[in-house]
């Protein structure tokens, strides 16, 4: 599954370009510089991993990309250029057009991101109706199709179940299905498999790559687990204390890590991240 | 109690106007109660035969009652009664409640069912009438009042602490303590209760206010604190007959009760914010 090969420059179309992003947030009386001038890019059909430990700023960076930051955080400066437009200049209406439709997310604890009082079928249908303005019946049929796409077998049961009745792995598939409902160009996955069992993790990773091939979206995968980076990505960004400290092709990162923190991460990976 | 509120909470208190105002009010009241002899200009039983039912004046700041006793002094001494009854009654209730609630929550099953059903039964009784009945049988006295209010108010704290302990029991740090060899008593006293006590403190503060109100009501009906010992409630007995002619006898004791209840409510509100 290793994809450390070079993607040729000329056919690369730049989907997302982040320039000098700075995000601060207010914690009681302190101003914390969570993201301090981050540059990163994602090309069409690429899988990019944003690696870092807790506190590195990777999640805030990911949330900043569609400006869904918590109320005490704010983007101080920088540019987020998506398909040629700086989305930091977008008004709220334009932003909600981008979210879900062009850029979608998958998060760590799928069960808590799903609404506990609606069935799975209703939730997916709602997303579809919101973005695609289909009728209820059509939306429900589409919901069914989407669940098939994420390789869920027990369709009727899952469609009529509530999130707490399903396993973590199942809910993650549902969430992926919801995120892909509107065929986004970019899927941002923030530690989507960290709380799942290792066999389920392997299945979900495989599913994401297959869907990526089939539907043609780019994947920005955030994780602290370099083993995943090795398995799925073309390029890796390493974040440390709010900054990108190294960027390279996956194979380069593993063979010749340059920054000390990258070396630390690789050393830990060598020790216990693989067998 | 300060041990239970962490050091950094002192800082939080500054951002907590309710708590501050409440503490100031009750603080002043408590000081007045403790230093009653120093604060009151007259002895509360001193009769001024020249000045019966006098309105507020420089000589008698809040006026005098129908026996010529200085109202201000009586109110100050009355605060001793109200505060002590309130605090001790609530103390008894909270102590009993903690004991029974902690036992029910920790040991569960049969003890829990037994204690909680007992609490339910007691809650079915209209407390005020229960107290009236008891007071009618025994003689009304300050001690009886304290004890009876205490014995009929333990259910609230018990339920609260039981609920908190039920949820805390399964937390990992409690299991860790058990693994370390801590006895049940140690776990309950050193770990469960300090972590569970927040809501109980809030409830106790409100309970003091409630107890004061209860005592005032009983005294007003003549079944509480007996004259000549001044209690805000029994000072108000006179107000029935003097309402039209001596407004100060109704207003000031009423105001005293109001401000005190308000003070405790503010503290409770402030505590809610502190325990988060």
């Amino acid at each position, binding site marked *: 599954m290793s994809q450390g090969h070079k993607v040729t420059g000329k056919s690369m179309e730049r989907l997302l370009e982040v320039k000098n992003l700075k995000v601060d947030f207010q914690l009681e009386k302190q101003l914390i510089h969570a993201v301090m001038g981050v540059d990163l890019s994602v090309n069409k059909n690429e899988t990019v991993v944003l690696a870092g*430990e807790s506190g590195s700023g990777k999640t805030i960076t990911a949330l900043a990309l569609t400006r869904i930051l918590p109320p005490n955080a704010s983007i101080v400066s920088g540019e987020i250029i998506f398909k040629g437009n700086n989305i930091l200049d977008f008004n709220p209406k334009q932003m909600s057009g981008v979210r879900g439709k062009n850029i979608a997310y998958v998060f760590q604890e799928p069960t808590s991101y799903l609404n506990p009082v609606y069935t799975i079928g209703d939730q997916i249908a709602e997303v579809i109706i919101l973005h695609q303005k289909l009728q209820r019946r059509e939306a429900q049929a589409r919901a069914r199709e989407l669940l098939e796409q994420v390789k869920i077998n027990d369709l009727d049961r899952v469609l009529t179940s509530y999130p707490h009745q399903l396993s973590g792995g199942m809910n993650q598939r549902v969430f992926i299905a919801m995120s892909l409902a509107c065929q986004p160009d970019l899927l941002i996955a923030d530690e989507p498999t960290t709380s799942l069992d*290792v066999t389920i993790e392997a299945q979900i990773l495989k599913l994401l790559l297959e869907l990526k091939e089939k539907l043609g979206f780019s994947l920005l995968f955030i994780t602290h687990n370099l083993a995943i980076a090795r398995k799925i990505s073309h390029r890796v960004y390493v974040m440390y204390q709010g900054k990108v400290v190294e960027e390279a092709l996956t194979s380069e990162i593993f063979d010749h890590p340059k920054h000390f923190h990258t070396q630390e991460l690789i050393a830990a990976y060598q020790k216990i991240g693989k067998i | 109690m300060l041990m239970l509120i962490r050091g950094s909470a002192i800082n939080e208190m500054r951002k907590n106007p309710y708590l501050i105002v409440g503490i100031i009010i009750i603080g002043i009241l408590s000081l007045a109660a403790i230093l009653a002899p120093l604060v009151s200009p007259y002895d509360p039983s001193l009769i001024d035969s020249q000045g019966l039912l006098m309105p507020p004046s420089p000589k008698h700041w809040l006026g005098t009652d129908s026996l010529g006793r200085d109202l201000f002094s009586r109110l100050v001494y009355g605060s001793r009664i109200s505060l002590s009854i309130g605090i001790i009654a609530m103390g008894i209730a909270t102590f009993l409640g903690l004991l029974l609630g902690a036992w029910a929550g920790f040991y569960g099953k049969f003890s829990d069912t037994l204690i909680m059903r007992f609490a339910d039964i007691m809650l079915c009784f209209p407390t005020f009438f229960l107290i009236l009945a008891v007071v009618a049988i025994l003689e009304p006295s300050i001690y009886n009042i304290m004890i009876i209010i205490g014995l009929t108010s333990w259910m609230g704290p018990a339920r609260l602490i039981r609920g908190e302990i039920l949820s805390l029991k399964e937390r990992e740090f409690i*299991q*860790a303590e058990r*693994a370390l060899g801590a006895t049940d008593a140690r776990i309950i006293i050193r*770990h469960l209760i300090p972590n569970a006590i927040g809501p109980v403190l809030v409830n106790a503060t409100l309970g003091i206010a409630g107890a004061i109100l209860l005592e005032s009501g009983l005294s007003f009906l003549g079944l509480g604190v007996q004259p000549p010992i001044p209690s805000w409630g029994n000072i108000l007995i006179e107000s029935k007959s003097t309402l039209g002619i001596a407004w100060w006898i109704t207003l000031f004791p009423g105001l005293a009760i109001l401000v005190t209840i308000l003070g405790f409510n503010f503290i409770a509100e402030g505590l809610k914010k502190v325990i988060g």
Partner: protein
Amino acid sequence: MILQAKDISKEFKVEKGMFKAEAERTLALDKVSFILEEFTTLGLVGESGSGKTTLAKIILGLVEQSSGEIIFNPEFIQNFRKDVQIIFQNPYNSLDPKMRIKDALYEPLVIHKMCSRASLKARAEELLKTVGLDESALERYPSQFSGGQRQRICIARSIACEPKLLVLDEPISSLDLTIQAKLLDLFLELKSKFNLTYIFISHNLGVIKYLADKVMVMRNGRVVEEASSSEIFANPRQEYTRELLQAAK
């Protein structure tokens, strides 16, 4: 051997219905047996629902088994609550939030009368040093420490009892990889320094490979495979074990 588990089973009943007439039964553990040799590390591998945490709690006497027995060798385990300790997975929940670190460390020392009142502080400082923390930690509260540091404090607390057997239930799973690596080395150090025996529970095979002498694979309450560490990784016999290894590669 230090302990032997014989046919440990655990059934959980969830009462249903208004009069608690029906009950849903879950078999968390189904006749689990194994022998733990002294001074070794037994790696317990399994996914969620495998019963590994329930087994750990039964060994610690925190949960009672439905049937079966755990036999401790009195040569090693004389005072159960002192000689057998556990480290839990969630460092954020394992310390009493209202107690200062020093009080948390004093507790086992006092309960087991490990030292005199006067030497409590010195002993606590020594323990902190052993786990790589500074003595300034004593006056602080758990909320002032990171996950990795809290876990070190829990380790210090358990070591205070001078245990013979330490059960570690996914002690590092929720921490960053570099912190995990550091704590693993601490575990190794403590094991040799204090002649400990470990039962190390983890779903991370890389960690198990690093630490364990013997590996027991569990699934749905049963032991699927049990072998030496090298055997399991080189020659997994059972389908499920192979699946786990494949997923981790």
